C-alpha cells in the first residue's frame, strides 16, 4: 500500500533494507548496464590502479539503494528525481558472501504537490559508501 502525502511527516522512516553484492552480481550488472570497466571484475587491474580490490559499480550500489524507496513508494514511477555522490568504494571480496549493503531512509522534507524528499544512508561494513543520496518521490 502506497503511503499518502498525509501519512508522512519529516522524520518518517522507511523500512531498512539489506542486500549482498557478490562478484557474480558485478558480472551481471556489467552486462546489463554496459559498464565493462575492468576494476569491477579484475582483481589484478583493480590493485594496479591503487584500489584495495575489485569494487562494485557505483551505479549498482545506487540502483540497489533506491529499491528501498521504490518498495516504500509502491510505484517505482513515483521516483521523479534521484541523486547520489559516490563517497567510498564498495570492495567486493572473492567469496560466496560478497559485500553487505545496508540502506536506511527517512523523509527529510515535504515539498509541493504531494512530493517528499527522502534522504538515504547507505553503508557497507559500517562505512558510508554514498553521500547526499536523495530521492524525490511523488506520493498519492
Amino acid at each position: 500500500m502506497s503511503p499518502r502525502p498525509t501519512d508522512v511527516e519529516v522524520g518518517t522512516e522507511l523500512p531498512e533494507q539489506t542486500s549482498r553484492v557478490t562478484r557474480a552480481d558485478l558480472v551481471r550488472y556489467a552486462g546489463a548496464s554496459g559498464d565493462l570497466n575492468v576494476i569491477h571484475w579484475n582483481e589484478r587491474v583493480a590493485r594496479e590502479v591503487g584500489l584495495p580490490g575489485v569494487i562494485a559499480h557505483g551505479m549498482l550500489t545506487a540502483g540497489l539503494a533506491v529499491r528501498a524507496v521504490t518498495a516504500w513508494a509502491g510505484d517505482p514511477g513515483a521516483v521523479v528525481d534521484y541523486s547520489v555522490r559516490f563517497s567510498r568504494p564498495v570492495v567486493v571480496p572473492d567469496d560466496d558472501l560478497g559485500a553487505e549493503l545496508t540502506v536506511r531512509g527517512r523523509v527529510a522534507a515535504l515539498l509541493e504537490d504531494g512530493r517528499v524528499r527522502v534522504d538515504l544512508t547507505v553503508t557497507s561494513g559500517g562505512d558510508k559508501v554514498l553521500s547526499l543520496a536523495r530521492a524525490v518521490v511523488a506520493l498519492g
Partner: protein
Amino acid sequence: MALDAGLVGRSYPPSAVYEVGREKIAEFAAALADPDPVYVDPAAARAAGHPDVIAPPTFAIVLSLGAGNVVVEDPEVGLDYSRVVHGEQRFTHHRPIRAGDRLVATATIDAVKTVAGNDMLTTRVDLATEDGEPVCTTRSMLVARGTA
C-alpha cells in the same frame, strides 16, 4: 591538466534512436535483484497506470553511459580516462522510461572545475522521444584524479 572553462555549454549531436525493449528492462531489473512486477509484467504495469512495463529509476544510465562517451572521447576536452572515477550521478525523470520508447540522447557539458588538482566534468544527457517529448535528464560528474 586543468579543464578549459570555455567547454561549458558545448553540446554534441543527438545519438541514434535507442528502442527500449521489455527484455532489456527485465535484464536490468534482474541485475538489481528487484522483484517489482512493474518491470516485467505488462499487466501489473497497466494496473499501476503505465502503458507498458517501466524501467527502474537508474535504467537511464544505460543510455547516458553511451551518450557521455562522446564527451570523454572529445580530444578538446582532454580528460585522462585512466584516472577517471564516477563522482556523482543524478536522474531527473519527466516521466518513467517504458518499453517501446524510442529515445534520442543529447549530451552537453554542464560544468567543469578543478579542485585540489582533480578535474571535475559534469555532463548532462537529455533523453527525449524521437518526437521530442522530454523523458529523463541525467547528470554525471566524473573526477579525473590529479597525479600530484
